[in-house]
């Protein structure tokens, strides 16, 4: 994977909308890999509190986010006054995709299909 791509994992800690087995397996695989990554308890909470750190969305730095629907994630960042850059952001949906596909895309293990752009 490109050295400058950051990875952000959302635990969706305060609800059951993301299947538990998927979110656990994604974290397990990330943890077992040799890459650096950031993880947050609940992006919705950070948006509600408007405390998404600005460093997360530096323009020009590719970012991959494992969370839920790209449209939801895009507007959660916007609501926190921390809009995602237009380019180089890939949101992977743990509500609909398998853990294997998500981790494959996070770590560029296979280039089968592109994740949705926010």
């Amino acid at each position, binding site marked *: 994977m490109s050295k400058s791509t950051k990875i952000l994992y959302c635990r969706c800690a305060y609800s059951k909308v993301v299947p538990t087995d998927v979110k656990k397996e994604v974290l397990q695989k990330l943890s077992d890999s040799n890459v650096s990554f950031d993880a*947050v308890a609940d992006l919705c909470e950070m948006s509600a509190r408007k405390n998404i750190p600005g460093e997360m969305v530096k323009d020009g730095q590719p970012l991959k986010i494992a969370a839920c629907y790209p449209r939801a994630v895009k507007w959660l960042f916007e609501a926190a006054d921390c809009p995602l850059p237009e380019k180089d952001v890939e949101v992977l949906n743990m509500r609909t995709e398998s853990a294997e596909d998500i981790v494959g895309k996070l770590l560029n293990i296979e280039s089968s299909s592109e994740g949705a752009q926010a």
Partner: protein
Amino acid sequence: MNQESLLRVLLYEGHDSNPLDPELRYEFLGAALDKGYSATRVTTLGEVNDMDEGTLVVLGDFAEKQPNASDYSNETVKVHFHDVGQKTTTEILSDVEQYAGQQDAQERKPWKPWFPVIDYDRCTNCMQCLSFCLFDVYGVDEDKQIQVQNQSNCKTDCPACSRVCPEVAILFPKYRGGPINGDVVSSDDVRQEKMKVDISSLLGGDIYAALRDRSAKAKSRFSKERSEDRALKERQKCLVKLQQNLDIPPEVIASLPSMDQIQAKAEAAQAKANAALDSNS
């Protein structure tokens, strides 16, 4: 209250530290996130976010080379290094909690995982949501653009405002179904939502008052006689359907204020919406 979210834990497995046990790493990361902390894992590969305020607890197996915290702390970020050695997840978490306790006792408002988020790519600023919501969740900014102003007033599990939005522009990320949860909006979704808005305008746009009226009437011992009135019967049927369509939880209907208060609130919300619409036109 979530005192912990100002605190970030960082598992350091870069230069000058030994790799952690994989099982401990995974277990600790999950446990820290479930406690509400932000967590970062650092290896020699890839990048992570910087930090410009808060408390950073750097955990690692530093052997003899634990760095000096004061070399990394500044006015806004307090850094602590902590050797995890042979500790268990529970022991490490309890160590981290001590640092959480050392943070400034900053007042933190409680939060509810249920609140609306507006998709401004779709929103036409029509103000339907503002005039519909009786709980002052919506307002307008200085440019008269609709915005979510009091998200904590939102009633848990009630997605009704997203149902009355004709553009399907209101999301509840933790809702079970699409497109309200952020799933892609299809033209069918838009058609369906527009239909519901039409039903609500048939009822005079005053859905909450009508629903409360219905539930009061249902309790009345005269409801049977009154329901002789065919029009009323039809209207009530329509309301049941509407309540189901809007997915308003019964607790929300039960907790609605009195008819007079509803009417006053609805008028105030409508006036706010009209003022915003007038100044936009």
